[in-house]
């Protein structure tokens, strides 16, 4: 089979949706990390928050038969986990990476445990009783060839993520809360001197981060798929953190970083069908992120060096 002869089948309109579809769980995760990053907390626990959300969503959707309750419960679950982290980090001085890793391990273990206990199964829990997040069917697109592929039958949360990116962008850069959050993250003493309760802001950021992380999980287990699999987040939380770095915690730029992951993911899946070692495509986004991190830091350092230089005369003084 000639790989290049099939390029047209790999890179076509459906790839765009496939990319977006693969990106959405990561975008939610990245936004979960971005909000705490604005308060200068590196949310390594994103992965764990998301996994707990995914499990809770499935469990509640299955037992109540309502996807809405499932999603809400997932958000509550995510918030609870995030608050454990928040209390540990803010009140008891836990090193954020250490407690974040602890949270991730806890999430894997507790979901596995509960799956055993509640559903008496190992590995995967899927059941017709799990009610998924509905897809948005737009009837008049049915007959328009390209747009139908591109836009029809999106999952509800996939539409929501677009709105959500914009909303977060507005909150970060145009609202009182966002301004205070950024001040707390960049120079807490200044924020304190301006009468802002720094710890309260951090708790709020962590709480909201937990809600978003829970939603990310719910989307993964009720929207992206309709099942719960052990450790189903599969590093998506970490990818989200990396994308957040890539975008400097700016929601829009962060989402762009996530699309990169989604693109590699869906291209990889297609290439694999043609005998190309999927591993190489799958590892691309990780390598690219490492490169981007390195290059952006190098540029930053170089700019700082220029600013500090005694040889260059600056206009403002």
């Amino acid at each position, binding site marked *: 089979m000639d790989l290049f002869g099939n390029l047209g089948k790999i890179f076509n309109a459906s790839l765009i949706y496939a990319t977006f579809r693969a990106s959405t769980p990561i975008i939610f995760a990245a936004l979960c990390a971005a909000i705490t990053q604005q308060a200068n907390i590196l949310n390594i626990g994103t992965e764990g928050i998301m996994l707990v959300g995914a499990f809770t969503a499935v469990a509640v959707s299955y037992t109540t038969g309502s996807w809405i309750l499932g999603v809400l419960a997932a958000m509550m679950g995510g918030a609870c986990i995030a608050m454990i982290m928040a209390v540990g980090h803010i009140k008891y001085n836990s090193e954020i990476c250490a407690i974040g890793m602890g949270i991730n391990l806890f999430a894997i273990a507790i979901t596995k445990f509960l799956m055993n206990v509640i559903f008496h199964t190992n590995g995967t829990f899927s059941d017709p009783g799990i009610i998924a997040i509905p897809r948005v069917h737009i009837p008049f697109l049915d007959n328009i060839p390209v747009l139908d592929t591109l836009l029809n039958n999106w999952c509800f949360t996939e539409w929501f993520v677009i709105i959500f990116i914009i909303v977060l962008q507005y909150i970060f850069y*145009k*609202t009182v809360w966002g301004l205070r959050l950024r001040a707390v993250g960049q120079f807490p003493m200044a924020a304190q001197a301006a009468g*802002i309760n720094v710890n309260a802001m951090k708790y709020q950021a962590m709480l909201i981060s937990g809600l978003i992380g829970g939603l990310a999980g719910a989307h993964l287990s009720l929207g992206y798929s309709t099942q719960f699999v052990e450790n189903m987040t599969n590093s998506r939380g970490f990818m989200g953190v990396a994308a957040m770095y890539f975008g400097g915690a700016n929601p829009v730029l962060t989402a762009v970083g996530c699309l990169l992951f989604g693109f590699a993911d869906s291209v990889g899946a297609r290439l694999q069908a043609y005998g190309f070692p999927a591993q190489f495509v799958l590892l691309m986004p990780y390598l690219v992120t490492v490169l981007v991190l390195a290059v952006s830091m190098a540029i930053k350092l170089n700019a700082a060096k220029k600013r500090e230089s005694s*040889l260059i005369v600056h206009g403002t003084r």
Partner: protein
Amino acid sequence: MNEYVIEMKNIVKTFGEVQAVKHGEFTLRRGEIHSLIGENGAGKSTMMKLLYGMYPINSGSIVINGENITKLDPKIAISHGVGMVHQEFMLVSDLTVLENVILGFEPKKGIGIDYEKAKRDAQQYIDQYNMEIQLDKKVSQISVGEAQRVEIIKTLMRGVEIIILDEPTAVLTPQETRKLFEILGNLKAEGKSLVFISHKLNEVMEISDRITVMRQGEYMGTVDKDKTTPLDLTKRMIGREVFLNIDKTYSKIGSTILEVKDAWIPSPKETSKIRGISLHVNEGEIVGVAGIDGNGQSELVEAITGLRRVEKGNILLNGKDITNMSPRKIRDTGLAHIPEDRNTRGLNRGISIENNLIAVQIDESSFNKGIVLDTVAQDKYAAQLVKDFDIRPTDYKTLTSSLSGGNAQKVVVAREVSMKKKLLIASQPTRGVDIGAIEAIRNTLEKAKKDGAGVLLISAELEEIISLSDRIIVMHEGKITGELPAGEANENNLGLLMMGGMTDTSEAGKGAVTL
């Protein structure tokens, strides 16, 4: 109605083991400028931070506008009309000036911020006090003087009646200081009450109505400006003539040990960049570098010691070019260095006195047996130094984090001086240490000189510079504004040079001007 808008009585404040304020008293009348003076570490800033609610007091009482305040944080302080302009500006550098000004008190429109209204309000104050502020720039792009005006606008926007200014002139050029004083005059005329923290007597005498003196955390009295003299204030502030009693010996001046030739050194702060500096130190002399903190002294020291890169020019140690060499190689060439910040640089607080004492000699064969560290030799060495330098506690296995400021500094001094290097750089060697330790440390420097080392002493304490140095260099905005023998130096002529006097003040320090 009470005579005072502020009354602070019997204030005590400790940080861990350190008593920052042992007994503080302070009162403020409506519409006056009240200066709070004292040396570094006297507790002035701490007193005012307590008033502003940055930390809780241990004991004492704070009364604002006749109301006894039991619970205080910056927000409550502001609501009582107290604002503070901090020495280290409390501005977020990645936010715009306007965002900084409204932070914490943002006008709202719906759920967003009403930037239009914010801008109008801020502009009104800017115009009223004639302040020159660019609201749309990022803080990282404005000058120090402008940043300070932003801080003042910030407090005014919050509707405060009482403004605390913590060493506002420390970072300003003379022109900017003039501008600031005009603004302060306007504020006073408007009926605001001002607290002016400083350790510069000429400024205090110029601007104050009343003056309160603190020394080592203790209240030393309050006087009317008209009823006091600089000499009187100095006595209250320092009150320790004992230090001037160091026997200054004039030992034989030997050959040049350190030579800095037209060095250009970078810095994040514009006023600390060094654009061409030249100086030399000879064996057997102490060269003092005087200057207000942040005028390039730290950068100069870091460049000589290999901790900061030199962009142009040369540094020679013992005749050898050491420009941009590693700190290790420079030390091996003959340098000992007492750094200005013992907590982050001078000591590794997490390890013992002993380990700190041998830190720079860890690779020496005398402290290693093959590949293994020779703990016996280390113990012996540490025991000797602890005894010689009277470091307490004498158990050299104690962690340095538990030492008092004075003993911690003695560990640094012992480590550096005992190696008998040809050049000793001592940066703020007695900052924040107790009287006994100050005397011991100064005597040690004096002895190093007698033994033939060249000493470069950097200090913000004029009295320390004058009493120890043979020759004095004054730095201002990264340049040398003057050099004179110790015999000719006094507080007045040094003070003038530190303010950038004598050279062409109108354009000095702007742009890349080579001396």
